[in-house]
Each structure stands twice: as structure tokens, then as C-alpha cells.
């Protein structure tokens, strides 16, 4: 198994600030916007972006939620293992809100498909956008594209993109891992 650095801590930081600015450009004061981090790995990115928006750009009262899509996935009973759920934490209604889904890697698009179904349980949003740190090109199974992307990468099938976060993995970095 070999691995290659795609982004180091400094590059991740620059990209996060750019993504934060792009969000502000579109959503200004976030008064009708909610950020939804997708479990399990998207929540680190969502939490970090929220912190940058609040600390550096003085955006106040950002509504942040975590959405688990396990029960909405289309591969139930298709794999070897039971799909294990994570916590959903959405303490607000999303009726008429502008939602930004946040995930670390966009690959086949199936998780996003599941998230689009899952979020309907919390109301009918006005619009939904997608932000991802890494966009794997040419790997989509569904017609889904990000509205905000950190870095676009070309990855072949037996390779995996791993995003690490300081909070969980001791460093901010993105690796390309060959299986």
C-alpha cells in the first residue's frame, strides 16, 4: 500500500478559507442558510468551516447540523456488513431554508442522493447546494456535481482519497492511497 500527499496542512487551510469566502459571497449573513455536515466524515469539515466563518469572518448565528444517511442508503443488504448508523443532530426546521450539504469527498454521488432523501424528513427546503473538499472526477454514478469544490482530483478505481483532520487524525492533510 503506497500513499501520496495530495494536500498538506497549509494547502488545506488556504482552501478552507477560500470555501468560506465563497459561501459568504453567496449567502452573505447566513440568515436563511443552514450548513449540514454529512456523517461520518463530512461533519469535521462542516464544524471547521463554521469555526472559520465565525472566528475569521465574524459571521454570527450560523445554524449547523449533522445528518446521518445510513437508513437512506441504496446498498442496504448488499454488502457483507451491517450498515452502522451515526448521530443525526438537526435542532431546527429546514422548511424554506437554503441548505449547504458539506462532505469531505465526492465520489459516486450516492451518499448525496441519500442525503437529498434524508433531509426531506425535516421539511421542504428552498434550495440545496453541495460543498466538497475533494471532487473525484470521472467517478460519478449519478448526475450530481458540487457547487463549491476545494480541489478536483483524478483518481483511478483502486485508489482511495483519505482526508485527515486535526481533531480526529492529528493532522490536516489529504492522501491518495493505493490499495
Amino acid at each position, binding site marked *: 500500500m503506497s500513499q501520496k500527499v495530495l494536500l498538506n496542512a497549509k494547502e488545506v487551510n488556504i482552501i478552507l478559507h477560500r470555501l468560506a469566502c465563497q459561501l459568504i459571497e453567496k449567502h452573505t449573513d447566513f440568515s436563511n442558510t443552514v450548513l449540514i455536515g454529512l456523517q461520518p466524515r463530512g461533519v469535521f469539515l462542516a464544524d471547521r468551516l463554521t469555526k472559520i466563518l465565525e472566528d475569521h469572518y465574524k459571521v454570527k448565528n450560523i445554524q449547523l447540523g449533522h445528518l446521518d444517511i445510513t*437508513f*437512506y442508503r441504496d446498498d442496504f*443488504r*448488499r454488502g457483507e*456488513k*451491517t450498515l*452502522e448508523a451515526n448521530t443525526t443532530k438537526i435542532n431546527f*426546521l429546514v422548511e424554506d431554508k437554503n441548505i449547504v450539504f458539506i462532505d469531505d469527498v465526492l465520489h459516486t454521488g450516492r451518499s448525496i442522493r441519500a442525503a437529498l432523501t434524508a433531509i426531506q424528513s*425535516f421539511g421542504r427546503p428552498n434550495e440545496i447546494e453541495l460543498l466538497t473538499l475533494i471532487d473525484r472526477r470521472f467517478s460519478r454514478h449519478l448526475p450530481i456535481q458540487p457547487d463549491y469544490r476545494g480541489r478536483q482530483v483524478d483518481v483511478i478505481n483502486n485508489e482511495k482519497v483519505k482526508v485527515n483532520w486535526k481533531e480526529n487524525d492529528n493532522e490536516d492533510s489529504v492522501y491518495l492511497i493505493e490499495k
Partner: protein
Amino acid sequence: MSELSVNHLLGIKYLKEQDIQLIFETADHFKEVINRPIKKVPSLRDITIANLFFENSTRTKLSFELAEKRLSADVINFSSGQSSVKKGETLIDTVNNILSMKVDMVVMRHPNPGAGVFLSKHINASIINAGDGAHEHPTQALLDSYSIREKLGSVKGKKVVIVGDILHSRVALSNIFALQLQGAQVMVCGPKTLLPKYIDKLGVKVETDLRKALNWCDVANMLRVQNERMDISYFPSTREYTQQFGVNKELLDSLDKEITIMHPGPINRGVEITSDVADSKQSIILDQVQNGVAIRMAAIYLLASKIKQ
């Protein structure tokens, strides 16, 4: 561990502690789901479940059906009262006929102990025991423990007394197994005639004085006197039973500490428990009912995920 160690939920006896923890963690997520504006997930949309009730039930049947529907499973219902069982059909024949309609899972209540185990050896579907005679009622015990965990933080180390008709109770046996597996201490309390002779061999304390039992415990699980299962008289009168083994407000107020009161239902108000206790803050009876749906969703989800396509 992310998978149950069993393919059927026939009794707590067959489970490991990790299985119970996995069911509880999954139920936590489903509890959040059933409090959403839209309380349904599509996980089991390609699964069909048959609810076979060879014995009366209101709450358990409704709870299972609701859990199945919240998971988007297709549900068919069967009650022995309206069926060919009355015409002499055997259990295996009845179930095989239903399974030939492509059913993936069977939830069964049956008056005979071991009916679920018997069926699991003869048919090709996942089986959940919803009560077999006086043997086991695993989902009830799971939701009881889950409710204790929710109210008191954990089950481990807690003292639980099960009061009443232990002899005819499947809830008691499943609860004893479940509580012991999670490290709780268990006591049974009731008239001698309603305590099975060798119950102490299960490692439970035995008490016939309700006041002593309540002073010892953190949680009291009050059982109903199952008159329908009694072919002889086990105590002189209902009034005398109530005087000795019924819980009322004065009795609870006279204890040194505040204990939690549970009841698996249906309640005979004024017999084993008075109305003011059943509706008091100490009682978690309605929480048990709500948790029942989440627990059953978790059990069905985890078992269904082991049915391969």
C-alpha cells in the same frame, strides 16, 4: 461489533452483551428518527414481514407493526382467531404457506413455549419471538432495559425487582436474562405460589415482603396477574393480593429513596399498581411504550441486514 451474533431474535438467552449494546445504540438513532416531522426511513422497502399472532395482543402487535412501517417494510398480519389454524392446520404448514408468498421475516406470538425455536429449525426466514407462552418475550425485556438505561444512565450495577406473577410471566424470564447480562442485580418478589420453585438457581434474590424489596431496589417492574393463564387459585382474593403486593403512593412515599416504577402493560389499575403511582413522575410506563417502537425498529433493522439478497 457492528453485527448481531444471531440470525433470529428468539430469546435473550441466545444473545451476547454486545448484541444488546448494538441494539441499544441503533435504537438511539431510531428514537431520533421517530421524533422527526416525517418519521419514516426507506431502509426495508424490499422486505416483507408477517406478524403472526396466535395469541391476543394489542400493544406488542401495534408496536411491531408501527416499527415495521416506519422502516418502510411491507407488512401482513395474521391472527389465529380468524384463520385456518381453527380448521386444524399445523404451525409449520400455516407458516410455510405464508412464506411461499415471499415473506422475509416472521414476528410470532404463540401460546406454546419454544414455538419460535421450533419454527426457526424448519423454515427459511428470520424470526422474532414476540412472546412464546411463559418462556420469553425478548423485545419487551430489551425495551425495559433500554428505558432503565435512559432514566438512570446505565443498567450495570442497578438493583431491579420484578414484582408479581413470576410463574406465568415471559416478561420476567427475559428481563432476568437481559438485566443479568448487563450486570444488574435482580430480585423477584411475589406470593410464594407465583414464584417458580427453583427461580433462585438463576442467580436472582427471592423476597416475599414487598416493602423490603422496594427498600432494596432502584427500579421496580410491576407485573400483571395473568388470570387467563391460571387454572387454579394462586392467592385467596384480588383484594388480598393488592394489600400485600400492590404498589400505592403511601408505600412509595414511606421509602427512604425515590425508586423508578415500570410496568409492561396492560395495567390492572388498582390491583398491582394504583392510578396515582402509574401516572406519577416516578413511573416511566409511557416511556417504555415509546421506546418499544425504537427498540423493535432496531431489532428488525439489524436482523434484516443479515438477510442476504
